[in-house]
């Protein structure tokens, strides 16, 4: 048996865990950090996501964190020494000719500008002028600062940077259990590894409720993923990332020419069997939506489909912050399909909490306590963008309460 003594142990080597390790080491080179990952770093949600670094259209309570993350993304090569295909392509949040959709886009644009993100509302004519290939939208909010990056590359690159800064990264090492005795966490991991730590970070993605459960708390996580696909390479012409506000289709094109697409509704995935099935009918639907939005893609082909295992919460907000039961246990999970963009911000915020005890970025919306005291709401798009079976599963959870 090996015992490893560290200041901070992080369960989960996804983006959240790896960014946190990097930020801790950058900010306090004396702080001993260890990431424990059951598989490979960034092989789960962090490595298979759609790659949108979208700021606009988020819950207003998330915008300060999202903007903090954006300024870190914009310095990516400085921070990790690799570019990972980061590209500030801009993002179009687009409404069809439908009063509710238009109102939603206008609200998002207003909230963005209140938070300090410059966006521009474009009508159908302006859209046609700038992006003549785009079809079927009556207006959109344009956020030039929004970006994309290659999710397959980012987490391993962040992990390499963290390691270069002195963090310990253990791959293929599942954490089986943890407990706090006195002021020390004892963490039992595969291969007879025991880790003792002052601080424990739960960054275990869709598996995080299990970790929280070791300390007597939980959250109504629904493991799911959007159906996604990629087309074969066609000449590059789609510069921005485009999202229909009704969620039916989200697409972007990479420089090699492939168009990456996310459809809806989300389907259940299975964190135990480690499977994320993709429903063929949803893919065919999304192909239709894509062709209606970009008729010029007629003739392109479907190359590959996939999904991932992401943790969703009924109010579509993550859990970020201290445990309600255990001192120096910090949670960061349940990113509800938009954690790729937030990740560096989350890493920096967790470093605030670990090193300084508090963060200047407001985190009150993200407390784990909101499920225990029933203050969490069920978000409108949670009911719309998921398979029914998933909604029932979440709403049946004692911690979730329906408010509308």
């Amino acid at each position, binding site marked *: 048996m090996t015992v490893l003594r560290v200041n901070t142990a992080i369960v989960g080597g996804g983006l959240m865990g790896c960014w946190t390790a990097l930020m801790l080491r950058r900010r306090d080179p004396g702080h001993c950090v260890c990431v424990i990952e059951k598989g*490979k*770093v960034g*092989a789960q949600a962090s*490595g298979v996501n759609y790659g949108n670094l979208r700021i606009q259209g988020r819950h207003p309570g998330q915008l300060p964190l999202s903007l903090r993350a954006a300024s870190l993304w914009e310095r990516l090569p400085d921070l990790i020494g690799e570019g990972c295909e980061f590209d500030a392509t801009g993002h179009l949040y687009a409404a069809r000719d439908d009063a509710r959709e238009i109102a939603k886009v206008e609200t998002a644009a207003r909230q963005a500008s209140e938070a300090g993100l410059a966006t521009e509302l474009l009508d159908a004519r302006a859209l046609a002028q700038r992006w003549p290939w785009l079809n079927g939208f009556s207006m959109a909010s344009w956020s030039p600062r929004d970006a994309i990056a290659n999710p*397959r*590359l980012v987490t*391993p690159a962040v*992990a*390499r940077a963290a*390691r270069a800064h002195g963090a310990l*990264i253990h*791959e293929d090492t599942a954490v089986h259990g943890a407990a706090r005795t006195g002021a020390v966490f004892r963490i039992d991991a595969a291969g007879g590894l025991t880790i003792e730590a002052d601080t424990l970070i739960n960054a275990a993605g869709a598996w995080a409720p299990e970790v929280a459960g070791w300390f007597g708390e939980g959250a109504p996580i629904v493991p799911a993923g959007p159906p996604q696909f990629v*087309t*074969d390479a066609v000449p590059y012409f789609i510069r921005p990332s485009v999202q229909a506000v009704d969620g039916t289709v989200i697409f972007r094109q990479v420089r*090699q020419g492939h168009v990456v697409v996310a459809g809806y509704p989300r389907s259940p995935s299975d964190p135990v069997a480690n499977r994320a*099935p*993709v*429903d*063929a*009918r949803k*893919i*065919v639907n999304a*192909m*239709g939506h*894509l*062709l209606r939005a970009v008729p010029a*893609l*007629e*003739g*392109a*082909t*479907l*190359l*590959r*489909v*996939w999904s991932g295992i992401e943790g969703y919460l009924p109010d579509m907000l993550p859990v970020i912050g201290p445990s309600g039961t255990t001192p120096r246990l910090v949670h960061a999970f349940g990113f509800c399909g938009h954690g790729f963009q937030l990740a560096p911000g989350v890493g920096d915020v967790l470093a605030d909490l670990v090193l300084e005890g508090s963060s200047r970025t407001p985190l009150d919306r993200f407390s784990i306590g909101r499920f225990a005291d029933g203050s969490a709401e069920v978000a409108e798009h949670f009911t719309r963008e998921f398979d029914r079976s998933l909604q029932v599963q979440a709403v049946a959870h004692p911690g979730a309460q329906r408010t509308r």
Partner: protein
Amino acid sequence: MHSTVIVGAGPAGMAAAVVLARAGEHPIIVDEAEQPGGQVWRKPAAPLQPALARILGRAAAAEHEQAHAEFASIAASVDHRPRHLAWNLQGGELFVIEHRRIRPLRYGALLLATGATDRLLPVPGWTLPGVFSLGGAQTLLKDQGALIGRRVVFAGASPLLYLAALQYKAMGATVVAVLDTTALPEKLRATPALAAAAPRVLARGLSYMARLRAGGVAIFHGVTALGIEGQDYAERVRFRCSRGAEHDLAVDAVALGFGLRAETQLLDLAGVPLAFDVDFRQWLPIVDGDGRAAPGLYAAGDGCTIGGAAAAAISGRLAAYAILADRGVAVPATEVAMLRARLARLRAFQRALSRAFAWPAHWLADARDDTVLCRCENVTVGVVRAAVAAPLGPREVNRAKALTRCGMGRCQARFCGLATAELMAHALAAPVATMGRHRSQAPVKPIPLDATLVDEDTP
């Protein structure tokens, strides 16, 4: 709900359909090809039919005609759907596409008889125009009577090199040489096992070599340092012969074949476990002797275990009997026992062949960094090696794909997957089986974006 759906109208699928039809069933048989026949019994375009015996040789042409006649005799009981690609399998539904129309097919039993494709090994210049896979070269000939070139070299590790060379010669091409990368002693060592398992097949194979020699075709065994050169297309083939001499041949086309690899994507999508086979050096599905893969799911032919045409047909019949038996229909026990015994012999033969014609996987140990490994995404050997050497680098092929795009393109790693695993195994000094295999993802082959779903029963 249709009782039985068969994917693949090659020898395995055709033979299965015959058994089922004669038992009073009405199977559906889908195949993306225009004509039944699969690879080996590919039906030539009509104007080419009279030349069949010349292309194939008399004995093979007779087998070919008999198989097609048998299949034609059950036409009334079989719903043969040509130009139908099975591209996805999920929850008891097979998704089939025909000309932009996608149909989900529900089935009581599903037989996957999807065959095999060429195994390729990246050598310098293999992506030049004029370089074909051996199967591609044969398909062009059998389908359209076209040749890949006038001065052709057949190179690789496969008994089919000799057959294809002979067919090309019969159709008027100059076969510059057959470059066999396997050494003669290895083949001689395998001869007793081959002779014991299937003496007639062995004799036929040896006669191909003899006829090529008699026709003045140079045959080199134990070829190494193979490379193809040319400005805009293949113009020269360079290699080292077993005596160590360097050779340089002028060509206008090259056919490369390093054996076959099973098409297992649909089985993988169905969740059937695959295991690494040390003789064939590839991942094959775990099925029982009659092809049962899972309840209601069966596999036969080269998509299940590389065995050749005769074995494919027999395994198709056995799988059909398994389907019937599992439904409680009485099957002829003595025939089944005889089929099992013949299949075992033919497969043993194929196993011995795979040792005699082992693909030179060790070439990947010193493959040049600038050689293209994944031609769909244009990823070189050097890029994959560098990724493997980096901190937190990939230790199996799916991770390598995620990090380098190797195997991420149109062919879904069909043509680079096995080579990538061998390359990584050498770079990491680890057994090739631990490098894993590319997980299958739908669609099995690309489908058009403007395809739409139609109801199962819409004609």
